[in-house]
Structure formats: C-alpha cells, structure tokens
C-alpha cells in the first residue's frame, strides 16, 4: 500500500479508537501496530514489538518515575501536603487563586529535581487536586493545573529533552540549562496568568463554590501546621541540598527523596503495614500506567518515523528560505503539531538534524532554537491527543480526559504563542545568563 493511504488509515483509526473510548495505551499500541504492518510488513512489526516493550522499561533513568511517585505517596499518606494547603489557604484569607499559584510553583520546584513530567503530574493529581477542589476549584481546572504544573519539569533544568538536544547538536548542556532558566520562569508566569483568568471564569460557572468553601473550613492545630512546615522544608531541603552539593544526581533524587519521606513519616508515627501497602499499590499502579502509555507512544512513534512524515514536511519548507520570520513561525507550528502526537524525545531525535540547520540559516542559534523547541515541547505534554501529563492526571483522579484537555489546551496554546513571541523579540532573555555566567 502507498504511504499516503496508510497514513490516512492509521490516523483515522487512531482518532476513531480514541474517541470511542478504548484505553489510550491500547489506542497508541494498536494503531502503531496496524500502521507499521501496513507500511512495512510483518518483519518490521516483529523488530519493533519484540524489542520496544522491554527496551522502554529497562532504563536506569526511568527509575525516577516509580521512586518519585513513591516519595509523593509517602508524603501524601503522612498528611503533610494536606496541612500545607490548608495553611496557605488560611494565610491568604481564603483567596483561592493563590492555591492554584502555589500548585504551579510547587510543580516548578519539583521540576527542578526531576525530569519526569508524568511522575510529577500524577503526584500532584493525587496531592493537589482534592485540596483545590475542596477550596472552590472546578474539578476539571484543578486537574489541568496539576498537569500544567508537572509539565514544567521539561523546561526547568534538569530536563532530558535539553540533554538529548544538546548531545545531538553539540550545544553545551550547561548553557542550555542556564539559558532555560528565564524562559522557565516566563512559562510559570504565563501559566499563572492563564490560571487566574480561567479560575475567575469557572468560579462564576460553579455556583456551589460558596457552599463548598463554607463547608470546608478544616481546622488543624498549630502543632500540626508546624510539623507540616518543618517536615516539608526538611524533605525539600534535603533533596535540593543533596543535588546541588553533588551528593546525588537528579535521577537518584527519587530514591533518596522516597527514603527520606519514609523516615519522616515513621518519625511522625504514620508508618504501619497499611501505610506501606497503600503507598506501594498506588505507586505501582501509577507507574505502570505511565510506562504502558510510554510503550504505546514508542510503538506509535516508530510508525510516524517509518512514515517519514516529519522529514517530508520539513523538506517542503526549503523553498521558503527567503522569508526568515515565516520559516521560524512555520517551524514552531510544525513542532506544536508534532508534539501533539509524539513523545518529546522522539520528536527531537527525529527532527533536529533537519531543523537546526534551517533555523541557523534564518539567524536563530542552536542554543536559542533548543529553548524555543523545549517551550513548545512542554506545551506538548498538555495537548491532545497524546498529552502524557494530562493522561497521568486523568489516571489518578478519574477526571474525564476531554474535560482536562479543554483547560490544558488553553494553557498549552497560550504558552506556545506567548513564550516564543516574547523570546524571539527579546532573545537576551535566553542568552543573557549564558553570556554572563
């Protein structure tokens, strides 16, 4: 069969299976299988299905997913986060938008110790969503905030995408990390602005908010608050301190964080058989959910790679080289679309050899281009149909995906337009810190 019909058939199948309610992991897996088979036959399918499930899972770097989730389970089951949210809510005299901001900032902090957006989103989905809901947030928006907060980890260093990009383009990874700091903060600010706007609107929609607020005025003791703050500070301090003093790597931070949280919970007297069992069960379920989606995304990604869609589309751009601004806008739009369908690392591996020379030809340095892609890639974790951070939240909260995407897509679109627009107008935001390090 020709390539174009196969691509059409496979993408149609993908959309159809997705909308009819098949599990997303199976949608990715099955349309990948069908596409690869139609395109390249059973041999190619054998090569991919034999290797990919195992290769995807057997990775040291990915230990951060189960261990980071384990850490958040221990923290959550020790009630620390519950107290913290209640405290922030009290201190701000019930201004509920602050809690959303608090969640996004928390996501930013967690992003600085972990490279896995899915793991953070899943954790925040469990920890933050119930707290936000209790204090007047529409459930769908609360879920989207968790996803958005988690996605930040892919622009806030350390970020795997930037490392892969750096190795591919021979751009110093340290420079990429430093250059992404201000854009990362910019992204946080834009997310916060969108949040304020959406929260205001959704509050008007949800009339019961007033009741929800008055019912939920939980009062914990001063001692509980103190303990929560101290233990929270201790855990965060130990993880950050450990990473920045070079005692452990960000990959190892998941294990160390989980261990410290377990000890802390034990000191607080929360640990018993049930605590361990509950924590482990959720950890494993969430981890497996993330991993099985990643396996599916990998197989589907191989189909896209075999179809050579990204390469063909980029070849079509070459005649437009005379119009630099148009080229760069088109490139960013193409990336937005690719990140909608594919996992971040796959997009970078597949396209960067072609796009970086294009970008350089129109005057964008590899360093700047890497940051721009990485901003769009962060948004890609939030866009349908393949939005890993949104899937994670949907999995743990049971909030319908389409409701989450409705909000997360607004965050993603706003960030994808605003961040590149600002960065392209003021490139110093990316280069300033690097030039003055």
């Amino acid at each position, binding site marked *: 069969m020709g390539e174009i019909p196969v691509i059409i058939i496979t993408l149609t199948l993908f959309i159809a299976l997705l909308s009819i309610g098949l599990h997303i992991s199976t949608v990715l897996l099955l349309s990948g299988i069908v596409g690869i088979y139609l395109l390249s036959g059973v041999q190619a399918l054998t090569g991919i299905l034999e290797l990919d499930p195992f290769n995807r899972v057997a990775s040291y770097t990915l230990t951060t997913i189960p261990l980071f989730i*384990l850490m958040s389970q221990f923290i959550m089951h020790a009630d620390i986060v519950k107290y913290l949210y209640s405290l922030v809510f009290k201190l701000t005299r019930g201004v509920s938008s602050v809690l959303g901001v608090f969640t996004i900032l928390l996501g930013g902090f967690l992003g600085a110790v972990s490279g896995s957006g899915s793991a953070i989103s899943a954790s925040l989905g469990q920890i933050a969503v119930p707290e936000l809901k209790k204090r007047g947030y529409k459930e769908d928006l609360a879920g989207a905030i968790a996803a958005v907060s988690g996605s930040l980890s892919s622009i806030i260093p350390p970020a795997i995408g930037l490392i892969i990009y750096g190795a591919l383009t021979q751009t110093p990874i340290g420079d990429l990390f430093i250059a992404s700091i201000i854009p990362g903060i910019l992204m946080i600010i834009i997310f916060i602005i969108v949040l304020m706007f959406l929260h205001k609107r959704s509050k008007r929609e949800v009339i019961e908010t007033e009741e929800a607020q008055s019912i939920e005025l939980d009062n914990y003791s001063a001692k509980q608050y103190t303990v929560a703050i101290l233990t929270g500070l201790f855990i965060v301090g130990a993880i950050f301190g450990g990473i920045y003093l070079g005692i452990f790597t960000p990959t190892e931070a998941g294990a160390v964080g989980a261990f410290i949280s377990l000890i802390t919970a034990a000191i607080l007297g929360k640990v018993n058989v049930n605590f361990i069992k509950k924590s482990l069960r959720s950890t*494993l379920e969430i981890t497996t959910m993330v991993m*099985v989606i990643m396996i599916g995304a990998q197989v589907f990604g191989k189909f896209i790679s075999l179809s050579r869609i990204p390469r063909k589309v980029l070849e079509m751009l070459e005649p437009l080289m005379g119009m630099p601004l148009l080229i760069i806008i088109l490139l960013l739009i193409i990336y937005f679309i690719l990140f909608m369908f594919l996992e971040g690392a796959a997009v970078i591996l597949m396209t960067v050899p072609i796009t970086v020379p294009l970008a350089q030809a129109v005057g964008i340095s590899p360093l700047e281009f890497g940051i721009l892609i990485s901003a769009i890639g962060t948004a890609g974790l939030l866009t349908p149909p393949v939005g890993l951070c949104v899937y994670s939240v949907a999995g743990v909260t*049971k909030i319908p995906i389409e409701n989450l995407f409705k909000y997360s897509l607004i965050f993603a679109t706003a960030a994808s337009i605003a961040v590149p627009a600002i960065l392209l107008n003021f490139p110093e935001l990316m280069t300033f810190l690097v030039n003055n390090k």
Partner: protein
Amino acid sequence: MKILNKIDTVMLIISGITVLIMMLLIVLEVMFRTFLNISIPGNYEFTQNYLMPLAVFPILSQSYTSGILPKVNLFIDRIKNLEIKRLIQLSLLIVEIITFLIVTYFAFGYALKGVAAGVSFTAGGTLFPLYHVLFIVPFGFLLMSVKGCFLLVNMLRDKKYIPFS
C-alpha cells in the same frame, strides 16, 4: 475470580518488594559513595535490567483492571441506549484482548530467541543472563489478556455488567 485475586496479591508483593529494593539499593549506592568512597558493583545494570522490568510487568494486569488507565469517555457517556453501550464495550474489550495477545506473541518469540542466544549483560565485569527477564514481558501482557477474557465472560453472563466504568 478468586485465583485472579490471588495472582494479583502475589504480583503486588513481587513488584512492591522490587520497588523497595530499588529505593534501598540507590540510597545505599549514594551513601557508600559519599561516606566510604566505594560504589556497589553492578548497581546500575541490575536496576536497569532486572528491577525495572520486575517492578512494571508483573503488576501490569492489575493496573489494567483497576481502571487507572486513562481513556476518553465523551462519546460513550452520550449513549443512552444500554444495549448499544454494552455492544461497544464488548467490542472494545475484544480489541484489547487481541492487541495484548499480539504483543504477548512477539515478546514471547523474542524471549525464546533470547534463550537460544543466551542474551546477557555485563555488570561489574561479569556476564549476567538477561533471557529469563525477557519472559516477564509476555507474561505481563498474557496476564492482561487473561483478565480481559474474564471481564468478557462476566459481561456475557451478566447482561448489565460494564467493565471500567
């Protein structure tokens, strides 16, 4: 279903202990490196090749039936006719079982090849076998298909039963 619950418990124990071992191993590695200036030989390779697959694949089927795997409900929620809804659910279940069986088939074939070739990895300077671990992949997916079949049987027997909702 009783046997399935037992299997679930065993798998939970296997994967749960694996995650705890993973945590302790990495913590020990960090502590040894920091205080004693030594590294646990093979820590990296064992974690990657043994512990990660053991933490994920055995528990796969439990995640599947727990309803945590996300899906889009927009369309199915709008269908008011229970019969049609059931029919769609039934077909989706069959599609899933087939998909899992396809993966099981290929992963099993690969594990067999692995045995024939004696696939191994090196850690701390020595070769360690990898081929047993390769069987965890088809096992995990097979268990998912088996669970899917049980759900299917339940659906056919109990006319109102709809899984994952």
